[in-house]
């Protein structure tokens, strides 16, 4: 997985609430079984609207989104497509939970902030200002705003900082724990093992 430590650049603003993963990645493109190169399908049914801010050729690594961004379907094509457009950090008041998890699995950082902080970053984005996201320090710094701290689970932060693969890491660290759990479950709930 791609490491992520510091992301600095201009940001896109997409203020709409409840931007669901069907809008981010329309279902008809789910027939594609690849995970690379999906950016060309991102927001396929929205991007021709006048002034729509995201599309192929994007050079801004940060997205300032609206509340409940990425709600709906679990399709990981949503973060794959956004990531393929070069976006590494998404800031919003809230996220769809599965989308939020999926971002971390793909070297992307979703940041939850209170509404007024999201809106102050949005103003910087709309004025084409530069935003600096520092995952080590867990801060967002932009323009003349005071440094904004954000919360992120420590295991997810470490995984992003180190570019860890969740699957192989679980096997490397916890194979014995898993075996122990299974032995106990076989005794306690044998009907799950027939």
């Amino acid at each position: 997985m791609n490491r992520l430590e510091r992301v600095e650049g201009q940001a896109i603003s997409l203020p709409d609430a409840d931007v669901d993963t069907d809008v981010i990645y329309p279902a008809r493109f789910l027939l594609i079984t690849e995970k690379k190169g999906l950016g060309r399908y991102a927001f396929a049914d929205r991007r021709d609207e006048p002034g729509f801010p995201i599309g192929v050729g994007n050079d801004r690594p940060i997205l300032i989104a609206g509340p409940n961004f990425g709600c709906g379907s679990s399709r990981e094509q949503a973060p794959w497509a956004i990531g393929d457009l070069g976006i590494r950090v998404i800031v919003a008041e809230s996220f769809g939970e599965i989308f939020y998890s999926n971002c971390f699995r793909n070297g992307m950082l979703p940041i939850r902030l209170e509404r007024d902080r999201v809106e102050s970053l949005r103003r910087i984005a709309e004025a084409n200002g530069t935003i600096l996201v520092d995952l080590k320090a867990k801060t967002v710094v932009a323009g003349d705003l005071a440094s904004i701290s954000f919360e992120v689970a420590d295991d997810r932060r470490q995984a992003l900082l180190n570019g860890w693969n969740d699957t192989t890491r679980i096997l490397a660290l916890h194979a014995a724990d898993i075996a122990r759990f299974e032995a106990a479950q076989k005794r306690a709930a044998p009907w799950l093992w027939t």
Partner: protein
Amino acid sequence: MSRSLYDKLWDAHVVVDSGDGKALLYIDRHLLHEVSTPQSFEALREDGLEVHRPGTQLAVADHSVPTHDRNLAIDDPQAAAQIALLERNCAEFGIAYLPLQGNDQGIVHVIGPEQGFTLPGITLVCGDSHTSTHGAFGALAFGIGASECGTVMATQTLWQTRARTMRVTFTGALQPGVSAKDMALAFIAAVGSSGGTGHAVEFAGEAVEALSMEGRMTLCNMAIEAGSRTGLVAPDEKTFAYLEGRPRAPSGEAWEAAVAHWRTLASDADAVFDPEIVIAAGEIAPQVTFGTSPDQAVSIDSALPGDGALKRPMQYMGLAAGAAIAGLPIDHAFIGSCTNGRLEDLRAAASVIGGAHVADGVRALVVPGSMQVKRQAEAEGLDRVFKAAGFEWREPGCSLCVAMNSDRLPAGARCASTSNRNFEGRQGAGARTHLMSPAMVAAAAIAGRIVDVREALA
């Protein structure tokens, strides 16, 4: 310490507790479909990994399958390739696959319970957000992404954050003509599309106890539309009666031992939920969504709101603020999906028809949720009722709930639909979706406009 049902399920599956609200959670069962797993299997190959317990996995194709002419080759080469890839991947990794031409194919959230693969007390995941459906059995079930599907296959575990718990109690009894779908839509409208985010939602109360397993599945299915990955109903005698004798359910002594354990799976009397929401079931009228988020729903006898924040959804839906939802003409009707594609749903829809015919200019589809549902419906003669009324009787699949198969609506089409999402483009680019119950969709198909099914039944 008193524990909720969610707490009991969580505690029973902790492999490693990291002490900060996160745990490595053991995953008992994994359902696979063709859309969310190609990249998961690819990740296993890249890392040189095998499937840890193939016997705990079950696969079926549903999203991209055509719902007509099942005996012919699939027209769309991308869909054909995707389905063939699932079959190949399952063969390579030793995972059971229910074939498209077989007697057990269906939508993944219909076949899990049907097969007795879904059981109380287990953790169950699937690369599909409507995995919350299986919580109707008292299972901790939630949707995951494709990367996580790979992790589950290789390790039988996932790192998870413990959710907060919300309880939604439906007191009293539903009015005639009102169903689990209306309960779900009323709940989502009450809390909003992200009101359940970070929470596991337990549904309780007399009206939930009175629901069949099908109804409970409808209710839990839509928990995700309120932002909650997990819906739950405590298992009871109805749950056990539904499961007994199913092909993958335990039998004999194992069944007795399992049921004895399952009886302990209820929230303790003094378990604490935050928040507690109480909804009077008798006050719920048939619900209809008017916007492009499932929380944008009104009672059939209400006018549409006029809030400026709804400008974009109302514009997309071609609706004016303050107008009545009743009487709105439709040109498509869809009965099916993992929300409402079960036998009880088809019965409810058929019961509204009463010898009438689908209105001129309306195209109406009935898509059973599985081959078993289809066969049972045909044994009861429901297919003849639908066909005589002018509905198309299709083969099982996700169909117009996801529109990534041969069923898609044209731009501007207005559809009365039993599915779960009214998102922009969900039934086809530019198509407009009104979510409602199976009985309401059948009544709308007959009338050619959105009507109050309570009047049709009166």
